């Protein structure tokens, strides 16, 4: 019964959201806004579920002596940051903002910076001319890299137009072909969900 209710709600809201997209009437817009607001409310409650789950898992893992230092740091962050925000607020020059600017933001930047090294290691493996296709990929990558680097200024008359051609024609056409496939895949998946053919998101067919 609960599954039938979920499928009915999914069908009604799926059709409603599809229909409101093609209407510019104030009522249709207000329906859209109301549904989006309700989504935010639902998300806020599920965030609580997520936080409780994280807390519970961390405590259980610490009791079992699994990954204790990491779990401890995670829990300190989870409890500490909201505590600082509740006591001193979140305006500038508060302990919360100090922690955000001097601890959280640099840590996020550090993880992002790892990307540069990973791009280098992945490129080293990917750009090996082991076949004709790999050689073409290597050649195209070399042209693009050259045109976007400082060195490219020296050969800008030759390299830049070729690089632009590679980006605007072969690369763009392949990208658009993939995007068409993704769009069609999204359409059929959405329809399967709205019509109740696809029920894996509910745990499976019953």
């Amino acid at each position, binding site marked *: 019964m609960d599954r039938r209710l979920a499928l009915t709600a999914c069908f009604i809201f799926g059709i409603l959201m599809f229909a409101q997209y*093609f209407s510019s009437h104030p009522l249709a817009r207000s329906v859209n806004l109301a549904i989006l607001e309700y989504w935010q409310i639902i998300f806020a409650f599920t*965030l609580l579920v*997520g936080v409780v*789950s994280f807390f519970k898992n961390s405590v259980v893992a610490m009791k079992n002596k699994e990954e204790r230092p*990491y779990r401890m740091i995670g829990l300190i962050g989870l409890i500490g940051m909201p505590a600082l925000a509740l006591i001193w607020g979140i305006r500038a020059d508060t302990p919360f903002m100090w922690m955000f600017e001097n601890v959280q933001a640099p840590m996020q930047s550090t993880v992002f910076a790892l990307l540069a090294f*990973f791009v280098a290691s992945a490129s080293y493996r990917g750009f090996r001319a082991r076949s004709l296709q790999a050689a073409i990929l290597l050649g195209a990558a070399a042209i693009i890299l050259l045109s976007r680097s400082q060195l490219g200024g020296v050969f800008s008359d030759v390299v830049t137009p070729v690089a632009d051609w590679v980006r605007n024609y072969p690369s763009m056409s392949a990208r658009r072909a993939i995007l068409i496939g993704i769009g*069609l895949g999204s359409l059929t998946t959405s329809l399967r969900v709205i019509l109740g053919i696809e029920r894996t998101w509910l*745990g499976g067919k019953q």
Partner: protein
Amino acid sequence: MPIGIPYRFWLSFVFVDCRRSKLSSYLLMSLILTLIPLTQLHWFDLERLPLFVISVIAIAIVLFTTYSRRSREKFKIRKIAGMDAVEDAIGRATEMARPVLFTPGWGGDIQRPTTIASMNFLSHIARKTGSYDCELLYPTHDPVIMTVAQEVIKEAYARAGYVDRYRDSNVTYVSSSQFGYAAAVDGMISRKKPASIFLLGTFEAESLILAETGNSIGAIQIAGTDSTIQLSFFIVACDYTLIGEELFAASGYLSQDPSILASVRAQDILKLLIALFILVAVVAATLGQVTDIATGDWWVF
């Protein structure tokens, strides 16, 4: 009708010859009388009419192929290496007594069709890991996805007949922050050393961070995403990559459900129609450029 919104009412006089066909005339008159106020009240946004027509055609094709018996009987999907490798990847993890890690990426929420498609994949993988008694880790950035994934995995374990092997603690919410999520999943990969990693969903900048970490521990990696930029990273760093619509076809491919397979056929028909449209538009545009024939710009909308 809501209060406080200005409404305009139009009174129209329509003169119809009712002598020949009374019923059709009344129908025509009612249609005109209904359409005029609806258009004036903006119930239908006429600027979106071409998109509406295309959507209706696409939906009609999907519905026809899904519910047509003939279409369901004769359709067979081509082999997709990434999906065939799922069995080997889980088998390898079981033999090595190491876990399988599945993560849907940071870019999507449960509303995205890519996330729903990844759930279909997850269900299949969970059934296998449940049968083989192999640990399945599922870290995510979204508590809604976590809740749905818990339900999907639990159900899959139950269908495999091993509901007792399901652990709630293996399906975890880690962080909503992009690099917080990337760091948490990276740490999990480095410490738990999963033998197989599935990166299926909507990924952004974290894609290569996760894929390269997985590569560094020697895990078999199967990836798939709807982001064309991240696809290039996955192709380089992962063993198998599901490109574009392959991820959406996974549900039908893995379950072999005739109605889902038939809807995949609709994708092919629509793709063919789009290719024909592009071809005709290119010919018309070229003719318009090289000759004096006025072909217009009907393909732009």
